[in-house]
C-alpha cells in the first residue's frame, strides 16, 4: 500500500519544497537604516548649500611685521581678548638696547643745545663790547644745529620705541583665540603663512559661509531666510540670519586635499549668522544649509519674463 503511493507522497513533498523555495526567494530586503537621518528642510522651494562655520569677523590669521624668536605668549587657546590686548612678543632685547642707546644719544644732544644757547647768549651780551657780529651769528647757527641734532636724536628714539612696540603683536578686534600655533622659543615668520601664528575672531554670533553652486545662484534672493543643520545630527539645527552675499563667485574649494586638483565648478558664497548660545557648533565645522528660494527649479525669474514680453511687443506692432 505504502509502496504504491510513495511517488505521490514524494511529489507532494516536492511541491511543498518548491513553495518554500519560492517564499524564501520572495523575501524582500529590509532597508539598512542610516546612522544619522538626513535633514529635511522646512521650505517648499529651497537651494541647498554646503556651509562652513566661521567667526563673524571672518577668521583672522594674525601675522607679525617683524620676524624673530617669540619670547612670550600672553594668551591661551580659547581665551577671550579685547582689542589692543597683547597676544605675543618677539624677543626684544636687542631693540631695548637700541632704545637705551637712543635715549643716551638724546641725553648727549640735550646739553649740547644748552651749551650752544649759552655761547649765543654770551656772544650777544658781548656785541656792545666789540665782538664781531660774525661770531654771534655763528653761535646762533650752532644753536640751530644743536637743536636739529636733538630733534634727530629724539626722532631716532621714537623710531626705536615704535619698533619695540611693534615687537608685541596685539589683538585687532574683540574675539576669541581659535588657534594658537606659536610658542615661546619658536621663530615667527613674516608674511602670509599656510599655518597662521594665531587664528582669532569674534564667535558671538557665529557666521556660516554657504557655498551655492553657480547654477543655482540666481535662485538665492538677498535676505532669504535659511536654516542650518550640523553634519552628523539633524537635531542640532538653527535658523540663520542673512548677512551678505559675496559679490565675487569663486572656484569651489574641494576638501579632498588631493594634489593637482582641478576646479570642477564655481560657487557663490552667501554669509549667514546665528547666535552661538549653547549650541555645540564650532568654527570650522560643516553644516548643511537650506536657503528658501523664490521660484521652483526650472522657473524663469521675473526679470527674464518681463524682458521676453517686451521683446515680443514690437514684433506685434510692426505687423
Amino acid at each position, binding site marked *: 500500500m505504502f509502496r504504491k503511493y510513495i511517488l505521490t507522497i514524494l*511529489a507532494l513533498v*516536492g511541491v511543498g519544497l518548491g513553495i518554500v523555495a*519560492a517564499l524564501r526567494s520572495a523575501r524582500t530586503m529590509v532597508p539598512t537604516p542610516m546612522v544619522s537621518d538626513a535633514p529635511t528642510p522646512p521650505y517648499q522651494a529651497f537651494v541647498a548649500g554646503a556651509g562652513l562655520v566661521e567667526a563673524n569677523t571672518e577668521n583672522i590669521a594674525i601675522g607679525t611685521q617683524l620676524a624673530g624668536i617669540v619670547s612670550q605668549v600672553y594668551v591661551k587657546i580659547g581665551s577671550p581678548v579685547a582689542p589692543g590686548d597683547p597676544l605675543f612678543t618677539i624677543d626684544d632685547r636687542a631693540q631695548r638696547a637700541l632704545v637705551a642707546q637712543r635715549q643716551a644719544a638724546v641725553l648727549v644732544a640735550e646739553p649740547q643745545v644748552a651749551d650752544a644757547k649759552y655761547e649765543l647768549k654770551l656772544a650777544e651780551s658781548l656785541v656792545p663790547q666789540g665782538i664781531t657780529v660774525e661770531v654771534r651769528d655763528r653761535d646762533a647757527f650752532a644753536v640751530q644745529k644743536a637743536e636739529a641734532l636733538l630733534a634727530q636724536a629724539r626722532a631716532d628714539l621714537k623710531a626705536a620705541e615704535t619698533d619695540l612696540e611693534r615687537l608685541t603683536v596685539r589683538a585687532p578686534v574683540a574675539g576669541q583665540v581659535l588657534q594658537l600655533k606659536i610658542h615661546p622659543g619658536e621663530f615667527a615668520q613674516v608674511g602670509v603663512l599656510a599655518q597662521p601664528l594665531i587664528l582669532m575672531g569674534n564667535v558671538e554670533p557665529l557666521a556660516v559661509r554657504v557655498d551655492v553652486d553657480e547654477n543655482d545662484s540666481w535662485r538665492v534672493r538677498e535676505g532669504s531666510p535659511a536654516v542650518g543643520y550640523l553634519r552628523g545630527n539633524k537635531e542640532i539645527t538653527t535658523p540663520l540670519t542673512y548677512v551678505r552675499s559675496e559679490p565675487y563667485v569663486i572656484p569651489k574649494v574641494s576638501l579632498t586635499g588631493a594634489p593637482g586638483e582641478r576646479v570642477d565648478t564655481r560657487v557663490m558664497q552667501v554669509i549667514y549668522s546665528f547666535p552661538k548660545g549653547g549650541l555645540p557648533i564650532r568654527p570650522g565645522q560643516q553644516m548643511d544649509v537650506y536657503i528658501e528660494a523664490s521660484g521652483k527649479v526650472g522657473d524663469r525669474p521675473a526679470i527674464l519674463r518681463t524682458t521676453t514680453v517686451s521683446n515680443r511687443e514690437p514684433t506685434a506692432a510692426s505687423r
Partner: protein
Amino acid sequence: MSFIALKMLFGDRAKYLGIVIGLTFASLLITQQSAIFAGMMTRTFSFLTDVALPDIWVVDPQVKYIDDIRPMQNTEVLRVRGVEGVQWAVPLYKGNLAVRRTDGTYQSCVVIGLDDETLMGGPPTMLVGKLSDLRRSGGVIVDITGAAGKLAHVRPDGTRVPLKVGDEMEINDNHAVVVGICKVTQTFQANPVIYTTYSSATSFAPSQRLLLSFVTVKAKPGQDLHALCRRIEKVTGLRAYTRDDFKMVTFLYYLRHTGMPINFLTAVALGFLVGVAISGQTFYNFTLDNLRYFGTLKAMGAKNGMLLRMILLQALVVGGVGYGLGVGAASGWGMLVGGRTQLAFRLPWHLLVVSAVAVLVICLSSAALSIRKVMKLEPAVVFRS
C-alpha cells in the same frame, strides 16, 4: 471509472515510472535552469537590492547599467537637494580598486563609499562590528565572502585565515583598517565588496577630477516618483531612475549584451523536448498496451467522453507526480547547495507556474495522441486476438 483508470496506470509499474521519470527530468531541468538564470540576473542589480532606502538614483546620462559608472561633479548633490519634492539626497561612491593582499598579490574589489554624515547605503547585514565604526580613520567593512575567500590570508601551508576586525590592508596604496564584517547579496562579478565612507573612498580612489558615482534620493511622502525623476532631469541635466526602473535597465542591459539568455533558454528548451520525447512516447505506448481494456470498456457501452476523461486523469496524475518530484528536486538542491556555495539560485513563484504549464503542455500533447487512438478504437478489436 477513475478507479479503473488509476489501477490501469499504477498496474504497469515500469511504464508508469518511465513516464514519471521523463516528466520529472523535464520539470527539474526547466525549474533549475530558469531559477539559476533568475538568480544570476538578480545578481546584476544586487547593489540596488542591498541599498533599499533611496527611491531614486541620479546618474550621468551616459550610464547604461549599474556597474557602468561615469562620475559627476560633487556639487550635483546640492543641486539635486534643491529640487522640489526631494526629502534628502546623499552621494554614493562605487568603484573597482586594487587591494593588495598580505602575500603581495592584488585583488580587484568593489569599493563603496557611503555619505560621511548619514552612512546611507550600508550593508544589509552586519556580522561583526557596527556601521558607525566606519567613521574611524581609514576604517573599512569587508563582506564575509571576500573576507573568507579572495581576501583571506593564505598561510604557507595553504590554509586560509579569514580577515578579521583589526586587520590592516592596502587599498590602492592607501592604508586601511578592517572595522567590521558584513554580509551582502552576491554580486555578479563576484568581487569582494568593501564599504567605507565617501571621503575615504575618494582618497583611496586614484586622483580624478570627478568622483561622485551616484546621487541617491528619497522622495517626500506622496510624491509621484516618475514626475520627480523628470524634474530632477530637467534641473540638473542628469539621468534619474526610480529604483525599479534602474533594476530593469540593468537587467535588460545584461539580457541584450550577454549570451546568458540564449544559453539558459537552450537548456530549458532541451528539458522540454526531452520531456515530450520520453513521456509522450511512453504514454502513447502505455495507452497502446491498454488498448484492449479501453476496447472492453467501449464494448461494455462506455462513451468516448468517459474514456477521454480517463486518459486525461491518467495524464494529469503522472504530470502532477512528475512535476512535484522535479520541482522538489530542483528546490531541494537549490536550497541545499545555494546555502553553502555561491550558487545563484532564485525561485520566484512565477517559475513554479511556468514549469507547471510546461509539464501540463507535455502531458496534454502526449494524451492527445493516445486520445486520438482510443477514440478511433473499434470495440471489436477486443475479440480479434
